[in-house]
């Protein structure tokens, strides 16, 4: 590659991705431990909450939504928005049955 400074002076390409990876592994360890605790009614909520945190980290940092343009962020949120509609409208039926 031409005209680049040597690697010692460049910002590390590893630092932030490795920090996120460590956080992901820590969350994985946490969710495995939580799955064996007697937290019965909240267990699935906790494990899904941790899963969404992991997904958020991957989307924001690995997929660079934190540095994306507004257009790209809207496109990313669109799928999620329709997913919420689908779940909420289904839940209004199934969760309200006697």
């Amino acid at each position, binding site marked *: 590659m031409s005209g680049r400074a040597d690697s010692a002076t460049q910002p590390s390409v590893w630092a932030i991705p490795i920090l996120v990876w460590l956080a992901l*592994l820590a969350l994985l360890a946490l969710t495995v431990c939580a799955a064996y605790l007697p937290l019965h009614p909240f267990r699935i909520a906790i494990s899904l909450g941790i899963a969404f945190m992991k997904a958020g980290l991957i989307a924001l940092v690995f997929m660079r939504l934190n540095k994306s343009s507004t257009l790209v962020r809207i496109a990313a949120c669109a799928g999620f928005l329709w997913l919420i509609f689908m779940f909420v409208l289904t839940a209004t039926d199934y969760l309200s049955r006697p």
Partner: protein
Amino acid sequence: MAQVPADLHEPFTSRARQREAIVFALWIFLASELLLFGGLFLGYATYRLLDIRDFNEAASHTNVYFGTANTAILMTSSLAIAVAGRALESGRTKPTKIGIWLTILLGLSFLVVKGFEYREDLIEHLWPNLDFSLKPPVARIFFSFYWITTGVHACHVSVGLLLIGRLAWMAHRRVLPQNRDSVEATSLYWHLVDIIWVILYPLLYLVGR
């Protein structure tokens, strides 16, 4: 007239616009993928309400060791391809190549672990046919979701591996710097495959513990 940069392709007139168009298109595609798996997740959620206890009991028959190992493997592969993309953008080809090959290796490891897990599931008669080993009716439904979601996901991993294999081929031919947007697009797809697995993991492996 200035020379056209090697990484600028038809019909774009600037690199920034080219990158924006590719990333935008990819996210629209990823949103459709999210809705594909979202339908499966919704089916899972509604059928689970039929009988939560039996559904969770069926989930206790999945192998949490294989599931957890595969989650760690896939998250590490996401790290590898994220580093590959960032290294390419800062002009370093060696970490890029290492990242790409590591991703391929980890993706293949994921499929191998999944293969061992499927083998164990079949030995335990967890395929919902006449020999199915669990009694409750919703256990059959849980394992239908298990096979469909992990199967569709494994197809996505396989497609991702082919696409990353293409990047390795480009790196071999030394044309990767001219195709840096391909690296970004492929890694976005790979990360989404990782996200889908991260959501599947508690639903299939943790609810029954």
